[in-house]
């Protein structure tokens, strides 16, 4: 999971994944749209492929890169776990906040007397 996140932490690879969300694309097409040269795109695609984010599909003379859903789902699962950790903390915080509000109201009443 961490490795997957690290692969996407490189901004251009993140942009490539975002672009491929729209559908399969060839290397030169990706390069043109993102303003990168072909060796750069090829390097990023190789790393993305090794991390399991993309697959290659030959079509006529071209090689099309497509997004694989699995790593993104893992990432989604990770974010959900992280969310639950904070949600559990915040439930405790809700209880504490009620207590602090009650205390503040108590002080207010005493002051008004």
């Amino acid at each position, binding site marked *: 999971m961490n490795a997957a996140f*690290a692969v996407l*932490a490189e901004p251009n690879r993140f942009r490539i994944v975002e672009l491929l969300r729209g559908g399969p694309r060839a290397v030169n097409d990706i390069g043109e749209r993102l303003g990168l040269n072909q060796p750069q795109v090829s390097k990023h695609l190789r790393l993305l492929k090794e991390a399991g984010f993309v697959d290659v599909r030959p079509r006529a003379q071209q090689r099309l890169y497509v997004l694989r859903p699995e790593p993104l789902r893992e990432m989604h699962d990770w974010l*959900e776990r992280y*969310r639950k950790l904070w*949600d559990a903390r*915040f*439930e*405790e915080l809700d209880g504490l906040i009620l207590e602090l509000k009650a205390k503040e109201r108590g002080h207010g009443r005493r002051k008004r007397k």
Partner: protein
Amino acid sequence: MDVENGNEIVTKNQTTVERRSDRELVVTRTFNAPARIVFDAWTKPELVMRWWAPRSAPMKMITCEIDLRVGGKYRYVFEMDGGAQHAFFGTYLEVLRPTRLVSTDEEQNPTDGQALTTTTFTEKAGKTTVSMLQLFVSKEALDEGIKFGVDVGTRETFEQLEEFLATTK
């Protein structure tokens, strides 16, 4: 979920986590209280200790030190069931009571700021929305930050925490 507390009906607010860019995560939650109360609960050590390690989680917060001023440090130490300890700490870069905090987040082996966290407290009609944006400075930092966020130390811890999180709704 509604919880009745005295004469106050409290609706549980939603926690959201959003990946805003390749190295930013944002956690957002609204609390039913003015910002001054939420800010205190977030920054006074004796109050932070009440919520940072949820009661049902397999960890206890054993130290919480907060020097709330620009350049001041904070240090949180947890002890996991099984005895392993994990510390993390950082430095406050901005402190604006009760609306904004910016801090670095580091871990036991300090490197140059692994993440920069900007927390804003926005009050509206007596409620406060807290938005915590974590910007990871490098892919290694993101990696480490994520490791901490979930596993708080060790692999076993991660599994314990997973079990715990599976039981919370």
